[in-house]
């Protein structure tokens, strides 16, 4: 033990002040915040932070906004546990703890000049939105953009305003579906893979970026492969219990990789043969 030991704990969060809260669905809210220090979060699309409320705990949450000039960032949070319940009770002006950003990001550089097929299932839209918005803000640098979004039912659709904009914006093909429609739903019904026959892509130059519940990956990957998209051009983001964010605690381990450091964004060819990954 001859090396010098750092004095700063990697578990000590920075503080962020909530500047705006928006209800997305019954169980999801969007929190816009900025670091109290004034510095930017410095994230890339697809990375996550460890969000905490002192006295309640800490949990990994993906950043939902594209990096922007104002230094603010957005977290879309579903109320599912102690921490997220507590966060839902916060109001504008409250502060939360932030560690990170952690992990890998979507292939923002590699996809430049290429076509992108975004496939989002349910709350998977939250991390994917950071990349979608980044691409839309730098539209001229990317080729054809297709977005597929599937939700269990219409009330679980997030970011309704943006979905509408995507649907009407020139130069984007946006398709949505729900598994279980309500009386007002007039759109497509079925699981997300049923949207694939409706899209027209040039597989050789298309990157497929997938985020959704675990069960979705296997089926969407099969569709993407069937359409001829090369395995090396398929990317996905995996959810695991990233407790520490620094590759120590062991919870997010899949084989020899730590999702908090080697992921959450993976190229399909890097994980396709890992037991327990997909």
């Amino acid at each position, binding site marked *: *033990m001859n*090396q010098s*030991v*750092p*004095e*700063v*704990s*990697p*578990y*000590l*969060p920075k503080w962020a002040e909530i500047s705006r809260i928006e209800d997305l669905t019954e169980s999801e809210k969007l929190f816009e915040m900025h670091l109290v220090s004034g510095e930017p979060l410095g994230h890339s699309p697809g990375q996550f932070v460890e969000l*905490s409320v*002192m*006295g*309640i*705990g*800490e*949990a990994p949450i993906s950043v939902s906004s594209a990096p922007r000039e104002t230094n603010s960032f957005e977290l879309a949070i*579903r109320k*599912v*546990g102690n921490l*997220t319940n507590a966060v839902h009770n916060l109001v504008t002006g409250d*502060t939360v*703890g932030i560690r990170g950003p952690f992990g890998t990001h979507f292939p923002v550089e590699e996809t430049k000049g290429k076509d992108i097929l975004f496939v989002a299932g349910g*709350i998977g839209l939250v991390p994917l939105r950071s990349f979608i918005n980044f691409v839309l803000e730098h539209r001229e640098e990317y080729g054809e953009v297709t977005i597929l979004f599937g939700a269990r039912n219409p009330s679980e659709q997030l970011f309704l305003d943006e979905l509408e904009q995507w649907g009407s914006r020139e130069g984007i093909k946006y398709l949505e579906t729900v598994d279980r429609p309500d009386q007002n739903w007039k759109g497509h019904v079925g699981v997300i893979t049923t949207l694939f026959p409706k899209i027209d892509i040039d597989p050789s130059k298309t990157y497929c970026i997938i985020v959704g*519940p*675990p069960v979705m990956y296997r089926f969407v990957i099969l569709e993407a492969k069937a359409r001829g998209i090369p395995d090396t051009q398929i990317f996905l983001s995996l*959810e*695991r*219990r990233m*407790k*520490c964010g*620094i*590759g*120590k*605690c*062991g*919870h997010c*381990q*899949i*084989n*020899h990789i730590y999702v908090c*450091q080697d992921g959450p964004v993976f190229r399909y060819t890097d994980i396709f043969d890992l*037991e*327990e990954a997909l």
Partner: protein
Amino acid sequence: MELQVFDKSDHDLFVQKLINNYQVEGVKRKEDSFCYGSIKSPGDLCLDFDCTIGPPKKYFLPPEETLLRFTTVPSLEVTAVIESTPFILFGVHPYDLKAINQMDRIFADGVPDPHYLKRREAALLIGVDPTRVAPRAFWADMEADAVSNGFDLMFTDMGESFIVEIGTEKGGDLLTQYGKVRPATRNETRERVNIRSQISNMCKKRGLTFPKREIPQLLEHSEGNIFWEEKASKCLSCGTCNLVCPTCYCFDVQDDMGLDLSNGERLRRWDGCLLQDFARVATGENFRETRASRYRHRFFRKGLYLFRVLDDVACVGCGRCASSCLPDIADPVDAFNRLKETEK
């Protein structure tokens, strides 16, 4: 390497001087077993033991420790708790030293963890060669019967005396300041080699049927082996194997709020990959739902995943998991040998 000889009649005085000047932790007898605890008098210390119930990892990675301390009144103040008191850990067998060496790397590599490293830095480790072999031990097979570093002093019981190897300058100072030693003769140095190899050979009696270096490859091809299901069907998911393992370090982080809500702590607690909820996420998905997947994961982590990080198998052959497992399914020797037998 010059070895020193330390007469056993001087040993109690040496330990007493250490106690006078340091906090001393070491191996104590507990009924028919042995455990690590505070040494308050020389008679507490027992260096003639086969294996302790729990490993010494608790001194560097306590079962529960405070990472952050906070107050909420008048406003939120949060401070990191990075504390350490110098202490001596007396009586660590080579396999446990090897485990500590591995854990040092885990907590130092990548993002360093000062909570662990500060405590580790404050410790003086006095190793001791085993005089007895625990019934389920197989450390000789895991090449953990001797370590070349990781100790400040290393004792070997020679009957009437101890031979002491000095591992660090700090260790050497400790010995010259508080002990009465003379350089070992050639014969004594040779005798130490004999004693060490005798005990190593005793440890090989129930051992692996194949060389340790084949373990990673063996596991790599065992994914679908029925062995995992068979054994795991008896698993209680109690996590005892994790608890007693000197190389298990997985942890959870939780907050503890004071009753008056004005202060609290963020705590790190040991966790275990055999426990049911270890890989469960907030939405309810459990990525290792079955006992077989968790049971298999532990062996894979020791023999394959951490091997890729440490370039060594993360099992040191102490045998604690085997002797602590109620349904007796945790024995790595049994697992590895069975996998070898049924290898395709």
